[in-house]
C-alpha cells in the first residue's frame, strides 16, 4: 500500500489558521499548553505534540474539519473522551487531535425498541444515569465512568460486560474524509429509526467496529440498551482451577442462566481496591511475594461473578442452579460475607456495577500503570492459554499478576486479559515486556488459536490475514485515499508515520 500522501502545505500554522477561520478560534487550539497537554495519556506510549486540537460541537464541524484535513493531508487522531485509550489518542508527528468531548448529547432513549442514540463525547457516568431514569441500563465496561460509551462499544472487547451480545452497536452516523455522511443502520432510510443494524443491504456498521478511527469519524451511535429487571443479582463462585471456572460458565450459558460472567484471578480480586496508586505500590506485600499461580490456603484461585436479572422467583431458582453447576465443576458458591472477608473492595465494586448498574469510580483498575495482554480463544483452548501465559508472566518478576476472563457472544470465545505492573519509570523493563508481548501474541495464535484484540504497537499486521487484509486495504483506500485517519492506530502499518 502507498505511503500517506505528502502534506499539501508545509507553511507552519496554516492548517490551524484555516480551521480557525472555518470553525472559529474557540473550537481550534494551538497554544503550547494545549498541545503539550494533548500530547500524552496515562499509557507508556511516547508523547507527541499535535499541530492543533479541534473541539467540534456538531456534525457540521466534523465535516468541515475532515474536508480541511483531507485537503491539506494532515493526519487526524480522534479522541472521544480520552479515557481507556491506551495510547490510541496520541497523534502521529505532524497530525492533529479532534477531541469530541463537546459532542456529548443523548439524542434519544428508545425504550420501546431498546436503543439509545448518543454522541461520542458522552461518558458512561451521564449515560448510565440517564438510562437509569428510564429504567434501563447498558453494557458497562471495566473502565472508569469518564470513558465514552460510543468509543468503548466500537472496540468490541470492552463492551460485552453485562450483556450476552458480542457488541452493542446498532447504527452509526459516520463522516468520511471527503465529507460524506452516512448512516450504517436503518436510520439511513427516511423517517426510520435506528432499530435495525442491517436489513436489505450489507452490514456496514461492522466495518467501523474495531477500526480505531481509521475508516471514518463516528458522530452519532445507536447502542443497545436493556431494561433493569425486577431483580438483579451478582452470584459469586470460587474455583481452584481456571479451567473449571471456564466449564462452569459455559454450562451456565448453555442453560440460559446468566446475562454475563467474569472470571477474576485471586491476585486481581485481592488487589482490586488497593492497587498501584499515587507515588507507590499499595498492593499488599504478600501479593508481591507469592507466586500468582499458588494462592494461599482458603483463597480461591479464581472467583466467577455471575450476573443475572429477571423476576425475583427466577433469581432464586437460578442461584440454586449456580450452586449445582459450581459443585459439578469442583467449585462452590461464596456468600457475599465470605467474599468480603477475602476481598472487600471488589465485592462492593461488583455489586455497585452489576446489581445497581452504576459505573465505576476511577480506581487502580483504570490507572494505566499496568501493561495488558489480551487474546480471545475458544473455551477449550483458552484454558491452555491461561496456564502458558501465567508461566510467562511469572518470568517478568512484576507481581502481582492480575487477569480477568469472560465469555463473548454466548461463550463462543473467551477473552483472557492479563496484566503486570512494571515500574513505569523503568523504561527498559517496559520495553522488554512489550517486546515479549508481541512474541506471546504470535505464539498464542499459532499454538492456541488465540486472537489478539488491541492493535497499537502490537500484533497482527493486516499482511498476515490474506484476502481479508487485501479487501480491507481496498476499503481503506476508497474511504481514506490520503491516509489521514488515525495512521498510527497500528491497523494499516504501511501507511503509518
Amino acid at each position, binding site marked *: 500500500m502507498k505511503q500517506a500522501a505528502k502534506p499539501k502545505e508545509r507553511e507552519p500554522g496554516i492548517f490551524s489558521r484555516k480551521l480557525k477561520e472555518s470553525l472559529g478560534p474557540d473550537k481550534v487550539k494551538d497554544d503550547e499548553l494545549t498541545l503539550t497537554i494533548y500530547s500524552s495519556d*496515562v499509557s507508556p506510549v511516547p508523547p507527541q505534540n499535535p499541530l492543533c486540537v479541534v*473541539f467540534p460541537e456538531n456534525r457540521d464541524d466534523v465535516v468541515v474539519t475532515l474536508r480541511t484535513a483531507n485537503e491539506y493531508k494532515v493526519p487526524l487522531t480522534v479522541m472521544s473522551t480520552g479515557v481507556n485509550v491506551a495510547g490510541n489518542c496520541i497523534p502521529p508527528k505532524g497530525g492533529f487531535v479532534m477531541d469530541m*468531548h463537546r459532542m456529548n448529547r443523548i439524542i434519544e432513549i428508545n425504550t420501546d425498541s431498546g436503543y439509545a442514540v448518543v454522541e461520542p463525547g458522552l461518558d458512561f457516568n451521564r449515560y448510565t444515569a440517564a438510562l437509569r431514569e428510564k429504567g434501563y441500563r447498558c453494557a458497562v465496561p471495566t473502565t472508569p*465512568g469518564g470513558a465514552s460509551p460510543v468509543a468503548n462499544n466500537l472496540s468490541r472487547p470492552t463492551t460485552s460486560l453485562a450483556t450476552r451480545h458480542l457488541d452493542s452497536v446498532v447504527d452509526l452516523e459516520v463522516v468520511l474524509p471527503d465529507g460524506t455522511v452516512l448512516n450504517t443502520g436503518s436510520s439511513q432510510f427516511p423517517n426510520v429509526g435506528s432499530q435495525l443494524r442491517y436489513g436489505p443491504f450489507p452490514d456496514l456498521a461492522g466495518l467501523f467496529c474495531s477500526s480505531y478511527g481509521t475508516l471514518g469519524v463516528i458522530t452519532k451511535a445507536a447502542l443497545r440498551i436493556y431494561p433493569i429487571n425486577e431483580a438483579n443479582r451478582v452470584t459469586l463462585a470460587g474455583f481452584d482451577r481456571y479451567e473449571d471456572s471456564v466449564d462452569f460458565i459455559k454450562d451456565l450459558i448453555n442453560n440460559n442462566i446468566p446475562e454475563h460472567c467474569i472470571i477474576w484471578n485471586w491476585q486481581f480480586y485481592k488487589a482490586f481496591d488497593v492497587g498501584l496508586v*499515587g507515588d507507590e505500590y499499595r498492593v499488599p506485600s504478600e501479593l508481591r511475594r507469592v507466586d500468582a499461580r499458588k494462592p494461599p490456603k482458603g483463597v480461591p484461585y479464581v472467583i466467577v461473578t455471575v450476573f443475572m436479572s429477571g423476576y425475583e422467583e427466577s433469581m432464586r431458582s437460578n442461584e440454586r442452579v449456580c450452586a449445582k453447576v459450581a459443585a459439578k465443576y469442583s467449585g462452590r458458591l461464596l456468600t457475599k460475607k465470605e467474599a468480603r472477608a477475602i476481598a472487600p473492595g471488589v465485592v462492593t465494586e461488583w455489586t455497585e456495577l452489576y446489581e445497581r448498574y452504576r459505573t465505576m469510580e*476511577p480506581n487502580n483498575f483504570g*490507572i494505566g*500503570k499496568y501493561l495488558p495482554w489480551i487474546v480471545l480463544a475458544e473455551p477449550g483452548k483458552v484454558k491452555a492459554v491461561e496456564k502458558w501465559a501465567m508461566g510467562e508472566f511469572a518470568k517478568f518478576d512484576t507481581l502481582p499478576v492480575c487477569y480477568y476472563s469472560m465469555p463473548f457472544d454466548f461463550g463462543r470465545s473467551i477473552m483472557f486479559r492479563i496484566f503486570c505492573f512494571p515500574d*513505569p519509570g523503568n523504561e527498559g523493563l517496559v520495553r522488554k515486556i512489550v517486546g515479549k508481548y508481541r512474541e506471546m501474541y504470535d505464539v498464542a495464535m499459532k499454538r492456541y488459536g488465540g486472537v489478539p484484540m488491541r492493535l497499537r504497537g502490537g500484533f497482527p499486521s493486516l499482511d498476515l490475514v490474506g484476502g481479508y487484509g487485501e479487501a480491507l486495504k481496498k476499503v481503506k483506500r476508497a474511504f481514506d485515499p490520503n491516509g489521514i485517519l488515525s495512521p498510527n492506530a497500528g491497523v494499516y502499518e504501511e501507511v503509518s508515520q
Partner: protein
Amino acid sequence: MRLSTNLESMLGSISACMRCHVCTYGPWPENYSFCPLYERGRTFTASAGGLLYAAKAILSKRMDYSRSLADLAYTCVACEACDKCLVIRPSNPLMTLSDIVRLMRYELVKRGFVPEGTIKKMYEEVKKKGDLTGNGRAGTLKIPEKVRNDKADTLLMADGIRTDTEVASFNAALSLLGKMKKQVALFSDPGTLGATLYDFGFWDQLPGLVERKWKKVTGLGKKKLLFLNPHTQEFMTNKYRKIIDDFPGFTGCHFSELLLDAFNKGELKSKKMAKVKVSYHDPCFLGRGLGIYEPPRQVLGHLNGVELVEMKRNREQSFCCGARGLGNYFADFANGTAKERLKEFQATKADILITACPYCKDIFSKNMGSEANRVKDLTEFVTERTA
C-alpha cells in the same frame, strides 16, 4: 511545612491521572458540571487534570514553566471540587489534588511567573511585608461595649477585613450578637491568617506567618473560635495541620451555626415580615471545605415568611462564584463564572440570593448590576428579619 513543597515529589500521583474528567463534574447520578475552569473552556486543558498533564510535561522536561501556565493555574478558582478524585492519591497523605495545583503555583512563584493584576499586587505586598495588610480595616472596627468582652470564651475572628462587604457582614454579626445577648472577644490582628498566601502559592512566607498567627490566637486562651469568613475557618481547620507540626486543633464555629443554635434555644426570634423567596449559594469553603451545608438553610427556615428555593447545583455539587479565579487564561473569568451561577439563581425565580462568604457576595453583587441589593450575606438578612 508538612505539605510537599516540591512538584517533582508528586510525579507518581500526577502520572496517575487518566483524563477521566471526574475532576470536572459531580457524583453519579446527577453528574453536574462543577469545575468553573472546564465550564468556561470545555477542553481538557482547562481542568485540574489538564494542569496535572502540564505538570507531567514539565517534570519530564517536555515543557517549561511559563507565563501562560501561570495564567491557567491562577485562573483555576481552587474551589476544591476536584478533590473528590480518587485516583490522585499522593504518598504524602496531606496533599490533595487542589494542593498540587497550589504547589504548582508555588513553583511558578519561585520562578517569577506571577500573573499580572491582582495576584501580582498581592505578591509584591507579601514579598515586602510577609503578609497582606493592604487596606485592612481590622484596627478601625468598632465593637459595641455590650458585645465586646475580652474575657469571653469565644473569640470572633475578624482578621483580614478589607472590603465594605466584610465590614457590613461584621457589623450585622455584631448586631445579631447583641440581639442574642452574647459577648465575644475580638481577634482583629492586621493582615490575614494565611489562607490567601496558601491559595496563591506564596508559600515561602506561609509557614512563618501561620506559626506567628497561631501563637497569637492561642495566646488569647479562648475556648472557641467564631468565624464569619469561611476561607479563614476552612484554612485554620483543615490546613493549619498541614503546615504546623503537631497542630493540636481547636473548636471552631461558623456564624451560621451560632445563629441556628440561638434560634433553637429561643435566643433569637424572627419578626413577622412579608413573604420572600430566597435561594442559598453554598460557598465552596463553607460547604465542600467544612461540610456546613444545612445550618445556613436551617437558619433561613427559622425566618418568618421566607421560602427557600434551591438552585440546581447545591450542597456538595454547588458551583463556585468564581471570585478567586484571578489568572488571565480566560478574559474576565471571575465575572463570567459569577454570571453563570447567577443564571442558575435567576432560574429559581427567587427574590434574594443569600450567601455566607464575603467574596461570593462581592462578586455576585457586582454582577447583578442595578439589582445588587438582591444579594445578601446571611448575617445581614437575618439581622433584617429578627427582633
